[in-house]
């Protein structure tokens, strides 16, 4: 959304999750149930005391009624909760240690060890756990089946999923600069793992731990319910086992079988809610977006046509992110037919936000708070872009104004063929076109940008970066739009490919006559190819003039600094792109 691409270094992650309602609810549930399990047994008396008031409903002396043998259900639940928590935490710790061992160590060491560990984890993952646990428990005589035995068995059958997740994450961490630096510095492997890698895995480990605890409590409950749990232990599962065998259900004794299940469900829910918050640390994209605030009518109203050769007029446009950051401030701008308007500025100067807002592609929390964007059609007639209803906006997009995004790598859908992605533009905007014409048009578009039409059958991963960007340009021309917005169209490509693509763009512009808004931080490049240049700084356009003018007489100090920061700008303008002679200032 901003100039930060998906691959840019993430801002330092917060060490602690924010106290969202989800987290508070989750922690409250966990704390309450844990307290109940720890303190309850001390306060609530003997759970096994037999009474002659079997199966009394809740009320009176027994808050939650009694079992078939007159035992107090509340006291039983307290003990059972403790038993379940004990096993859950035990398994959680063991499974996490196992998964860390196989997931982190394996992938860090790499090579054969990683292959072996990974194969082992995957095999353990696909072998169904509970049947295995049942078989193992069945072979252990009941008198030897203690809580530890059960916990070990559950841990052995339950670690593999986490190991896989941890492995994937470690593989990416392993190649980070600071880890490589530590390796080059000759630090021992155990130290790199514990000091450099483990801290970064902590949120993930925590989430996997929480997950194992839930899984363990559920599995143990299932096992005990089947009569295969730890002997002489009291867990929520054994309680349900006795309730089932005491025909609690058939006798309508809901107070006997409902509460243990509810406790498990609520505890699991609490842990899951905590996991939500941990997930939001691991993946910041999951964080809740602030709700969009409706702003009052924008001022000023759309403008009339300033002169015949203007195609887009932007007036006093302001864009803010969530009411705090003003990314674009009161910007006015005109794009003329067939011209290349360069938009220069450093990362974060608001140039991408501005370009997106012109086509209303900005996403919440970004919002246009003031100003207007007017599109002047070739054949007369103006469109107030910011006021278009969604259906008309869809029809407007691409047919009048298309976009080539930065990062050629990601602009194409990896699971669809090039043809499908080109053709769906036509099926949407030119529904009456026959299948044959559609195909012919796509093939012609590829030929225009110098890509073999046989590539229509390819998937994006089968094309080189330069070819992908050519495909994007072909797609952008498919509907013969009047304006094309190009956001860093060549910055991910090497210089030679870059030059070829720019030359292509210039040629197509001469042939087809569309206007181009070319966004880049590469000022020398803009000086060569564009007709006019607008320089952005801190969300404002500080200078807007013909390219020669900007080069010869930069008015704003920032422009001068920008020009001065490039080593050599002495070559003839246009020499680089038009003749292919590198003038030293390319990158």
């Amino acid at each position, binding site marked *: *959304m901003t100039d930060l691409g*998906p691959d840019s270094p993430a801002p330092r992650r917060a060490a602690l999750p924010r106290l969202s309602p989800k987290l508070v609810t989750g922690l409250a549930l966990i704390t309450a149930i844990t307290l109940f399990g720890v303190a309850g047994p001390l306060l609530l008396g003997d759970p096994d005391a037999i009474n002659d008031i079997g199966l009394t409903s809740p009320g009176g002396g027994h808050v939650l009624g009694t079992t078939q043998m007159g035992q107090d259900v509340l006291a039983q639940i307290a003990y059972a909760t403790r038993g379940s928590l004990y096993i859950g935490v035990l398994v959680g710790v063991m499974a996490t240690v196992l998964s860390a061992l196989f997931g982190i160590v394996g992938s860090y060491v790499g090579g054969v060890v990683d292959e072996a560990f990974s194969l082992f984890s*995957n*095999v353990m*993952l*696909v*072998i*169904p*756990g*509970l*049947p*295995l646990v*049942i*078989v*193992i428990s069945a*072979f*252990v*005589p009941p008198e030897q089946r203690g809580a530890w035995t059960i916990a070990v068995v559950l841990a052995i059958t339950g670690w593999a999923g986490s190991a896989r997740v941890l492995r994937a994450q470690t593989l990416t961490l392993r190649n980070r600069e600071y880890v490589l630096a530590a390796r080059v510095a000759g630090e021992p492997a155990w130290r790199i793992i514990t000091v450099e890698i483990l801290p970064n895995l902590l949120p993930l480990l925590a989430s996997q731990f929480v997950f194992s605890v839930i899984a363990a409590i559920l599995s143990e*409950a*299932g096992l005990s*319910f*089947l009569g295969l749990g730890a002997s002489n232990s009291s867990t929520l*599962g054994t309680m*349900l086992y006795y309730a089932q065998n005491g025909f609690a*259900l058939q006798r309508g004794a809901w107070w006997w*079988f*409902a509460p*243990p*299940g509810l406790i*498990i*469900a609520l505890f699991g*829910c609490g842990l*899951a*809610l905590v996991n939500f918050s941990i*997930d939001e640390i691991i993946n910041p*994209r*999951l964080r*809740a*977006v602030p*709700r969009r605030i409706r702003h009052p009518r924008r001022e000023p109203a759309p403008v009339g046509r300033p002169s015949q050769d203007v195609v887009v007029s932007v007036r006093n446009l302001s864009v803010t992110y969530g009411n705090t950051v003003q990314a674009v401030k009161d910007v006015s701008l005109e794009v003329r037919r067939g011209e290349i308007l360069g938009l220069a500025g450093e990362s974060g100067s608001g140039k991408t936000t501005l370009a997106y807002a012109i086509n209303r*592609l900005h996403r*919440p929390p970004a919002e246009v708070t003031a100003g207007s964007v007017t599109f002047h059609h070739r054949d007369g007639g103006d469109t107030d872009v910011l006021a278009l209803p969604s259906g008309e906006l*869809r*029809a*407007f*997009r*691409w047919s009048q104004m298309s*976009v080539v*995004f930065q*990062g050629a790598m990601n*602009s194409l*859908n*990896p*699971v669809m063929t090039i043809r499908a992605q080109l053709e*769906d*533009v036509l099926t*949407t*905007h030119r529904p009456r076109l026959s299948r044959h014409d559609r195909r012919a048009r796509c093939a012609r578009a590829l030929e225009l940008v110098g890509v073999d039409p046989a590539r229509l059958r390819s*998937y994006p*991963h089968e094309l080189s970066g330069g070819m992908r960007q050519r495909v994007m340009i072909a797609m952008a021309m498919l509907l013969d739009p009047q304006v094309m917005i190009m956001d860093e169209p060549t910055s991910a490509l090497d210089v030679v490919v870059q030059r070829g693509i720019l030359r292509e763009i210039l040629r197509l512009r001469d042939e087809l006559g569309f206007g181009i808004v070319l966004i880049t931080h590469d000022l020398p490049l803009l000086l060569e190819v564009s007709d006019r240049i607008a320089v952005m700084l801190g969300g404002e356009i500080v200078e807007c003039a013909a390219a020669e003018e900007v080069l010869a007489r930069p008015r704003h100090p920032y422009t001068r600094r920008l020009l001065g920061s490039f080593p050599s700008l002495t070559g003839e303008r246009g020499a680089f792109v038009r003749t292919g002679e590198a003038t030293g200032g390319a990158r």
Partner: protein
Amino acid sequence: MRYYVRKFGFYLAALWAAVTLNFFIPRMMPGDPVSILMAKLQQRGGSVNPEARRAYELLLGTDTGEPLAKQYLSYLGNMLHGDFGISVSAYPVPVSEVIATSLPWTVVLVGIATVLSVLVGAGLGMVAGWRRGTWLDSLVPATTVLAAVPYFWLALVLVAVFGSALGWFPLIGGYDVDFTPGWNLDFLGSAVHHGILPALTIVISSVGGWLLGLRNMMVSTLSEDYVLTATAKGLPDRRVMIWYAARNAALPSIAGFAISLGFVVAGSIVTEQVFSYPGIGSKLLEAVQNNDYALMQGIFLVTTVAVLGANLVVDLLYSVIDPRTRAGANA
């Protein structure tokens, strides 16, 4: 091609691991299961012929002085022939026959329930992720309660409400015993009627995982460039949501199918117990209660094979959905 070879190789390795595990578990455990089985067999009036004893010994291990390697090879031979010995609890029916009659029940039940759960969960997750921050999305945390509810407890509650209290569905069993199993409408209708509550149990418990998984991936995918491109192309919302966002967002969920299926299989075993469903889960527990080790081992193996098979199918499906796997770069 390399992808398929790798996948088949992997599942063969997993199968071998399961078979081997099956061989070693009884041998590592305390006690003498063979003697217990023989005693049981005698109680039932079964003749203890040396052949039966030999089959049990191979399966469960006992101190006969035979080298382990030789036992192992003979055991593998028996497994290849599907010879798991004779079931004690269903004497004198062979284990393979007990499994053959109960397996279809479970496969159909778990199969239908899983498909339903995937469709409903992934569909809702897709829409919730797409309409992020709306009321639908705010319901997502509530689904975690469903995922945390023990299967069997949910089954008990459903039985109490829809079986006992409302009387809409039968309490237990897989079909009405008045009808003879076969391809007739009466029987099929009755089987469907009996299967609704068990299937509902599995769907409710497993739908949350799919929903959450797809919703979170949707949120991540929506900020990908290709989704922005699709929007800029002016495509209809539905096309962007399904073909650009959801198709990519579903990939990790499909890759994680093995984990989900493990939970479903575990849950269905316990659920079958609650409903006395005539499937393989009930048989497994019957076997455990009767110390019918041969049947137990057989069921474990067959379940594993079924799960491996399902995972293989999903892996092959994955390669259809994601063209990048076919390139062989990442298998």
